[in-house]
Structure formats: C-alpha cells, structure tokens
C-alpha cells in the first residue's frame, strides 16, 4: 500500500450517510451556539486573528510576526554575508537590553554556554546543509552568571536571489527544565532511599537489630505477656567458608523465609546479624511461648534446603526469655538473658534453654554474669584469632592481614558482633583489647617481615593509658617494627572524649604505628573524626561496597569519597569485595587496598603464618 495514495483516496471519498447526518446535526449545534453567544453578548472571536494567513509573502517577516505574538524570540542568519539579526524578544532572552547590543554571530555565541556552542553551530549547519528543520536546547549564560535554558527551532528559508538562510525561533524553557530536573531528582532520591530502607537487613529483608530492640522495648512498655526467642544458627560461617558469601546469603534468606512462614501473624522477626534471628512472641504465657518456640525450632532445624545444588540444613541453638508485667528489665536486659540462654544451650548441648520459671535477675546480677563469662573466656583462652588477607592493588599482592577476634562458645566460634557490644557496655572491652593487642604484636614475629597486620581497637579504649604503655612495652620486648601494626577504630564506636582520643592516637603514631578508621560512611561522626584524628587509612563501610554494582548512588558516593580522601592524603581500603567487577570498579576509583571473600576468607591465623597462602595474589586478583 502506498501511503500517499491511501491518504488521497480517503480524502476524496464522499461522506458516508452517517457522516452526512452528523454534519447536519453539527450545523444545527453551530447555529444554536452562535445564537446563544450573541444573545449573551459574548464575542466568539475573542483573541483570534481574523486576517488572511495567505496574504504575507515574506516568510521571514511572517514567522517573526507569529513568534512575536507567541512571545518567542527570533533571529535570522545569512551564511553568505554572515549577517545576523534578531528581534527585541531575542535580545531579552539572551539577557541583553533591547537595542543596546548590535546583533551579530559573536554576541549570540557569546551568551551560549561554552559546552553548548559547538552543538548549536552543528545544528545550524545541519539545517543549512539538509534544508531540514532542527531543534536544540542550549544554556544561556547571562550577566551575573545566571543560566537559563532556551529551546531553538531552526528553519531554512530562501531569499529572492536564491540564497538560503536560517531563521531560529527561541523559547525560554528554564521553568520547564527546572521542573523536570526537580521531578527527576526526587525520583532518583526516592529510588535511593527505597533501595536502602533504614531499618531492614539488606540480606534477609527482616527488621534489623536496632529496630528489633525497639520492638521489644515497646512490648515491655505495654506490660503485655510475651517472650523473646533468640535463635543462633551455627553453620552460617561454615557455609560462607565452603560455598562462598552468595550461597551463605541465600541460606540466610531461606531460613528467614521459613521463619516468616512459620511464625504467628502478630509476632515480630528480626535478623540481628552473625546468624542470629530474634522472635518477639506477643501475648503468650511462658508455657505457651515454650510450645510455640519448640515448634518453630523443629520447623527450622528439620528443614533441608536445596541452594544452588547444595543441600543444607540449619543447625544451631536457641534461648527463650519470657517476660510479663513483673519482669524487671529493659530490652537490653532481655537480650542479655536470651544470649545467656543461648550460651547455656551451647554448653549443655540442648537445642533450647528456656528461662521459664527462673526468677528474673536484677540488672546487676545480669551484668556480673556477663563479666564472669568474659573473664572466664580470657582465663581459659577461649578467645582466638582469625586472619583475613588484604590485597594492595598497586603492588598486586597481599601485603596485609586483618586480625579478627573469635570467641569459642560450646563448639561454636562467635564473631565480635555477638559479644563486643555487650563487653563495651559492661566496661570489659579494655581487657579484651589488651588481649588482642598482645596477640597481634606477638603474631607479627610469625609473619614475613614485609607483611603488616591490622587489628581492631574499641573506641572505648582510646585514651586508655595503661593499654598505650602495654603496646609500647610489647613492641620493645618483641623487637617488632611498629610500622607493621595498624590499629583500626570503628566509626560507629562512640569515641567519648575526642581530645583524649587524639592524644592516644598521636602517641601511637609517634611510636610508629598506623591508624585506620573502620566502617567509614556508616555513622554520624565520620567527618568530625577525619578532621580531628590522625588517620592513615580509611576503610569504606562494607554496605557501601557490597551494593556498588547495583546502586548508582553508592557508586557516586564511593567515587567522591575516594577522591576526597586522596586529597586529604589518606589511603582508602574497601571491605566486602566479593567479585572481580567490584574490584575493577574500586581500582578505577583509586582505592588502594581491598579485602573480602574475593580476595580471601578469614581463617585461623596458623593457616596464613609461615608463608602458607600469604603474599600470594589470589587467583581472582591476578588479572
């Protein structure tokens, strides 16, 4: 079918009987409308031009007149004579007072934003070459540096002598552009905020520890009966080590999904991190809570999941703490009791220990019990060290290890997240930090001389002069190079006294040790710390890095943080690097050190000491 012929055929077809009837009906309406308008004294022609559109011969003049009526500016350009003229409206759009500046190519281009000039000229030339109409939006920089957005509609006209010129019709669309930009900005902002909901765990989608704590607090305030069930899944680390973090995340999601399906509607489930799930069982007597908890545990621990071809069943223990109106504790106390119940389950080998029937202990008793547990761990050497390799991108090899503390608890190894926060609250962290520091300095002697170790220090220990003296003594005793030791301080840890912390850190640097700020970007004090404390390295928060490939906002933040840190002469380290794509992106941004499962998993220190694996570039990093 030829389109043009088809259009002509339809156009010349006579009206159908139906169309003729519609035409007659419309004519009656038109007469009635006209009569009504006249009787009401209305002028149907108001605002309309009654002149003959075909009487204007000069098309430049005609277009300029129409543009003027519409409040648009026009300019004409004759390439042969290089003559340019513009209307008064055009001068105003360009930011000139009418008649004050002669129209010329230079005065027009002078007002165009530097980045838009080439494109504008290209569009004018394209219109002249092809005779086609073109459109382009440019930025106009007015006096005072104010920028406006102007849309040009460029047409070619022919003069009487056959020469061609361009007539441009210009409309100031700044308001429209600004409105669109604002809509886009809000859309992007919503996207960013929605993808990282503040109180949700990104892996399981369940509420996180902070929110779970708030939920317990709320339940306690209402005085209702209920219980908190803390389930500790033991084989998460094992799965991560054997099958990788992705499978481990899938495994956690499966457990979360099983729990979500099995729990009662008004219960609350949270993921507290490190393989720990919390359930707030509402409106239950202690005995009923025990029955519900046992059923839930049966469901979780009996279910085998097939994840990417691997059969896995969750193993672990649980602790149950019922509460009622007479229970004298806050949410922290409930969680401490639940944690102790889990600990007791691990040591006794029972799947669940319930505090049902036990007289609620006072907060002092509770604290003493925890203190005793930490002291026992230190005395009986239940703390142990793991190491995770850190890859230096400029050297293309592992040059550092981070030492990671673990607590042996009834056959399971607990990560710091499970005991450090409580130890900090109970004032026990100093003893743990001392143990860690001692181990780190001793371990330096076992590693190759070009290997450096990074060790975590609690923010609470900054200012501890006894610890400082001990570090100095041990470095001298073991004759190790202090430059090989970097102390990491987590950003989220509350540094109580900035001046005290500054003195402590300055002394550490005087000794020759290095300092790193951990989890940068996750807390509130980051920039204050950067300005006030003498850090050598900043470790970007793992959540920022883990979502890097999917989240544009994370990319923008990370790239600019690295640039900023580089200008402050601070080296950047990234954690949670789980694949080569993230590593390549971080390399492109200028990050110096990377760490994560792609580089190497945490293993007992002995696995890395003596050259076993250390210093080698991981296979994935050799490219």
């Amino acid at each position: 079918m030829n389109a043009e012929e088809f259009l002509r055929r339809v156009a010349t077809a006579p009206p159908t009987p139906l169309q003729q009837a519609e035409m007659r009906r419309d004519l009656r309406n038109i007469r009635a409308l006209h009569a009504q308008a006249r009787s009401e004294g209305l002028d149907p022609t108001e605002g309309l031009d009654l002149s003959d559109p075909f009487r204007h011969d000069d098309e430049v003049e005609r277009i300029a007149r129409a543009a003027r009526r519409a409040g648009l500016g026009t300019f004409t350009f004759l390439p042969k004579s290089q003559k340019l003229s513009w209307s008064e409206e055009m001068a105003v759009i360009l930011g000139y007072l009418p008649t004050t500046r002669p129209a010329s190519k230079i005065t027009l281009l002078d007002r165009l934003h530097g980045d838009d000039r080439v494109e504008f000229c290209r569009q004018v030339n394209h219109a002249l070459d092809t005779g086609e109409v073109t459109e382009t939006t440019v930025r106009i920089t007015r006096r005072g540096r104010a920028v406006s957005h102007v849309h040009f509609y460029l047409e070619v006209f022919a003069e009487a002598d056959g020469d061609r010129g361009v007539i441009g019709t210009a409309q100031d669309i700044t308001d429209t552009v600004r409105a669109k930009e604002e809509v886009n900005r809000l859309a992007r902002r919503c996207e960013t905020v929605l993808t990282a909901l503040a109180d949700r765990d990104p892996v399981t989608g369940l509420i996180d520890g902070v929110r779970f704590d708030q939920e317990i607090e709320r339940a306690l305030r209402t005085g209702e009966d209920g219980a908190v069930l803390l389930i500790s899944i033991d084989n998460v680390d094992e799965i991560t080590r054997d099958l990788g973090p992705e499978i481990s995340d899938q495994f956690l999601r499966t457990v979360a999904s099983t729990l979500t399906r099995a729990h009662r509607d008004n219960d609350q489930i949270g993921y507290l991190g490190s393989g720990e799930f919390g359930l707030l069982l509402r409106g239950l007597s202690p005995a009923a809570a025990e029955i519900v908890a046992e059923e839930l545990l049966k469901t979780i621990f009996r279910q085998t999941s097939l994840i990417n071809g691997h059969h896995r069943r969750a193993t672990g223990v649980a602790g149950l703490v019922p509460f009622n109106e007479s229970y004298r504790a806050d949410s922290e106390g409930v969680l401490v009791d639940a944690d102790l119940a889990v600990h007791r389950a691990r040591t006794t080998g029972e799947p669940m220990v319930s505090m049902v029937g036990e007289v609620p202990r006072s907060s002092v008793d509770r604290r003493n019990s925890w203190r005793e547990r930490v002291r026992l761990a230190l005395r009986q050497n239940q703390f142990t060290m793991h190491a995770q390799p850190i890859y230096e991108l400029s050297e293309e090899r592992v040059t550092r290890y981070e030492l990671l503390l673990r607590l042996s608890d009834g056959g399971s190894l607990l990560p710091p997240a499970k005991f450090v926060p409580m130890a900090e609250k109970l004032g026990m962290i100093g003893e743990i930090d001392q143990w860690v520091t001692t181990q780190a300095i001793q371990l330096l002697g076992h590693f190759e001389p070009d290997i450096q170790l990074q060790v975590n220090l609690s923010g609470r220990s900054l200012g501890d002069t006894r610890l400082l003296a001990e570090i100095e003594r041990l470095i001298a005793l073991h004759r190790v190079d202090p430059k090989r030791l970097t102390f990491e301080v987590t950003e989220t840890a509350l540094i109580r006294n900035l001046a005290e912390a500054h003195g402590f850190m300055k002394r550490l640097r005087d000794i020759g040790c290095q300092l790193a700020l951990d989890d940068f970007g996750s807390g509130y004090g980051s920039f204050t710390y950067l300005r006030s404390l003498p850090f050598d390295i900043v470790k970007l928060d793992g959540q920022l890095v883990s979502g890097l490939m999917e989240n544009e906002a994370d990319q923008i933040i990370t790239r600019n943080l690295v640039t900023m840190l580089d200008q402050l002469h601070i080296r950047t380290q990234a954690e949670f690097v789980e694949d080569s794509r993230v590593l390549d992106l971080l390399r492109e941004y200028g990050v110096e050190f990377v760490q994560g499962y792609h580089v190497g998993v945490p293993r007992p220190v002995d696995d890395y000491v003596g050259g076993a694996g250390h210093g080698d570039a991981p296979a994935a990093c050799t490219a």
Partner: protein
Amino acid sequence: MSTTRGAELRQQNGPATETEIDYERFYEENWLSLRRYLRSRCGDYEMANDVMQQAFVVALDRWEAVRIHAKPEGWLFVTADKLLSRALKKARREPCDENVQDTAAPPEPYLLIDDSMTVEWLLGQLPPRESQVVYLCVMHGFTEIETAQILNVARNTVKSYKRTGLQRLQEMCLRLEQREGAAG
C-alpha cells in the same frame, strides 16, 4: 448538496441569503476534513468535535470578513489550531476531567474499523508538526507555501516534514499490512 441544503434552509427560515448559502457551502466542503484533522491531532473525538464547532461558530460570526479571503479554509485551519491549543491547555489545567486529555490514547490498530479511522490513527502516530504538514499538504490539498503560511513555518520546513512524515507513514502502512496478513 449545497442546493439541497439551501432549499432546506429556505424551508426552515424563509428565503436564505446568498451569504448564508455561501457559508453552508463552505461548511459542507470543510466539515469532514477539519474534523479528521482535529481528531488526528488530539486523539480525543469529543474535544475535536467541540473545537470544530467553535471554529465554525467563529466563521459564521465573521463570515462577511472571512469569505473575501483568497482561501477561507486556510483561515479556518489556523483558527481551529488556535482553539485546539486553548482546549489542550485548559485540559492540562483540569486533569481530573476524564474527558479532556491532550494525549488521549488513539484507538489500537485492531479497532480500526474503516479507512477514515485508520488514517486518523496513522497521523496520530507522527510527531505533531509532521502530522499537520502531511494532513494539510497531502490530504487537504494545500500547497507547500500555503501550508507554511498556515503553520507559520518556512517552506523548506514544510518540504522536510512532508518527506519524513510520508516515509514514516509508509513504514507504518507496511507494518499494518504485515499484521493483517499474519492475522489472516
């Protein structure tokens, strides 16, 4: 047909003046074309009909002045364009009224029941300026210069839009044919 209408008019209102008969001839010659033009421009049949009636009301009101134009239908299309722009602006200000949408979805191809509707749908798929040029030049029969004067653009622009518009229409016609062929 105008003779018939003139007779009808005389029957209803007594003897019709030459001006009235002249207006009716003008109306009958342009009614279908203007309606099709407005429908293809806005896709909203009700709005197109309202605007068309308004344009003819204005023509009726000032027929003495308009009839002496070299080609009164040129003025009619200019006026209809202006009235349609007003209606669309008003519709944007009153989005809650479900009947006034400036981008009312034109019927899908499988609902096109006759050639007239197919043409309106095809033109509605073109960029607005191309659609106007193709309609005025090819369907209504205005010359390129007249079309340029109606739309207040350069003649070169009309040429350019006519060429690209017809190319696009040809591609769409081919796709429609393939679709009909596939449907048996």
